[in-house]
């Protein structure tokens, strides 16, 4: 809440608020930025009360500092390393998905991004018996695929049902619905934190599906919304101790590399193909770890292209099988 209202403090009477609004002071920030003498004149409150109000507002709205040790203890006690259930991927990620972080899977279309997400969702629901949220923005979630993976693994029928029931799917139409869902989810997770509801991973498939319709926006609304989404996700990740796994698209670009002037060559530059993740440089600093997938026949090459704790360019190869990625 940023707007001044009478619920904030008993000193904000109807009269005081009305006077403040008439002079263009609507929000907490407006109030704090103005010098107290002026506020005394406007609100007709004694100087002492204005100072009290300022202190009160600052105490209620400012962030608290905490020491590195507290932060460390907080992380040690609350974060979890969630195994993806794919041995080679776990080894690559240093044990699995660490809560409090945002992971991103990029790749060209048809490079098994959704396949990887489905496998991870299934593994977490099956072996760790945790609830997984799967946010589906382009109708790509397939229960049949998960069902056939489980069948291929020869899981008992009752366990199959239980596993499927642990995967919660939400279909969103646009970015705004995504925001609505995330905010509701945050409230739910915060409430259930005490009884440990075991939600550790939230999967979002996919980012371009919600963002690309903002691409050519003259007001740059997409950029603002992108930052807000990143902000919301980081907040939820840290506060509720969950990890986000996002799906992003990559596309081919042609970069011209200038060659040294060579009289024998008629071409002065060579075009090379580069595979770049979508959403631009702004999004680059949002995910803490970025995986690039490349499908080669029936294998998927996974390489780390950005990470805060894993050496770059390390990679692994996964096999595409009927039971998912192995």
């Amino acid at each position, binding site marked *: *809440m*940023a*707007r001044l*209202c009478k*619920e904030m403090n008993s000193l904000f009477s109807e009269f005081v608020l009305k006077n403040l*609004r008439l002079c263009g002071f*609507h929000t907490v920030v407006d109030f704090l930025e103005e010098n107290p003498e002026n506020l005394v004149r406007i609100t007709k409150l004694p100087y002492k009360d204005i100072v009290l109000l300022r202190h009160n507002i600052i105490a209620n709205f400012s962030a608290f500092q905490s020491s590195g040790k507290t932060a460390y203890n907080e992380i040690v006690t609350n974060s979890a390393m969630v195994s993806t259930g794919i041995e080679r991927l776990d080894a690559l990620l240093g044990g699995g998905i660490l809560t409090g972080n945002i992971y991103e899977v990029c790749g*060209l*279309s*048809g490079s098994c991004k*959704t*396949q990887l997400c489905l496998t991870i969702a299934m593994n977490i629901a099956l072996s760790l018996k945790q609830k997984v949220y799967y946010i589906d923005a*382009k*109708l*790509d*979630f*397939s*229960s*049949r*695929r*998960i069902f*056939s993976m489980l069948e291929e693994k020869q899981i008992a029928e009752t366990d199959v*049902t239980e596993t*499927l*029931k642990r*995967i*919660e*799917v*939400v*279909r*969103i*139409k*646009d970015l*705004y619905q995504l*925001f*609505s*869902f995330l*905010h509701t989810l*945050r409230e739910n997770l915060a409430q259930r934190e005490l009884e440990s509801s075991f939600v550790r991973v939230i999967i979002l498939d*996919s980012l*371009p*599906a919600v963002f*690309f*319709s*903002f*691409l*050519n*926006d003259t007001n740059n609304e997409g950029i603002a*919304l992108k930052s*807000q989404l990143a902000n*919301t996700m980081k907040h939820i990740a840290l*506060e509720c101790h969950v990890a986000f796994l996002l799906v992003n*698209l*990559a*596309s081919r670009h042609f970069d011209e590399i200038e060659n040294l002037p060579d009289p024998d060559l008629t071409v002065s530059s*060579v*075009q090379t*193909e580069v595979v770049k993740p*979508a959403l631009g440089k702004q999004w680059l600093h949002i995910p803490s770890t970025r995986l690039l997938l490349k499908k080669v026949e*029936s294998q998927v090459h996974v390489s780390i292209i950005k990470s805060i704790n894993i050496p770059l360019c390390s990679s692994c190869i996964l096999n595409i099988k009927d039971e998912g990625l192995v």
Partner: protein
Amino acid sequence: MFRPLCNLPLPRLLSSKLRELGFMYCDDVCIDRNGKPILDPIAEKVLRQWSDEPCTYWKELLATPATKNAFSHLQDECDLGRIETFCRSLDEYMDGGVPLQRITEFSGAPGSGKTQMCLQLCVDVQIPRAFCGLEGQAVFVDTCSGFTVSRLSEIAEACVNHCSMLARDGLNQNMLQAMKHFSKISILENVFHVLCLTHVDLMASIIYLKKFLSKHKQVRLIVIDSITFPLQTIDNSLQRVSLLYDLMENLRTIASEFDVAVVVTNNLTTKVETGKESSLIPALGESFGHSVNYRFLLGRMSDSNFVCVSGKNLNKSSVTVPFQITRSGIREVQNN
């Protein structure tokens, strides 16, 4: 954490008005008073200019999409209707045909059977329930004037003949009853043709489809032949992608809301690589490939022999299926 107002799909004028009055977050507009959410009187006054019932308007804005677990999704997916293509191996690969509520793309060079496939699906979607069909209607959004009624009636006639043969041989009363209303004319009557020449037409007609479909509840198939043509006239690539995603967003909403299958056709384009021979790939780039659920590439081998390669299918690995286009439409290749 507060939700900023700019996270809501508000009209631009309304959001700037609210910002001027100092409303930054949803919690500013809707105040929690003793556990009961109440709209701020000033905000309510502003909202009233946009809607007669500000409370319901506000609730709709904040509505959270429902969650459903994968188990009930599995049941839904198994119950999903499918449109046969009349090519048995392709139907088997697709678990019974082109699925409703999903977007399927057919791409191929000119003359590779894309429009033929679309026309065939327009007929097949109408097969009566007695024959395990969907008994639906079809909307054909035509962007490059490729809709040929004479060809459609040829395919329709073949389909009607096939069904009446089945009914006669099986002496099935239900089937014979259904055949009374299933004729070439009824098939032609149940295909709605929309001609779009520019991308503006296309966008407008897709938005209008929502209204159209709420009146015509029987429609089970929307064909866009082709989606590439009107978009290729847009020079600015960013504008093209954003329009394309707008279109797809609308199509997805329509597909799941009205239980219809969406089939789009796409052209091919040349992919140039240094040091390699250039190859043909579906047009409109990676971003389009990302936004469809199923992708098939069609190609012509010889006179009436065609081939269909699956390029994207989450449930199964890629296959190549040969098929024929005969006078009666798409058919399985007969092995002699």
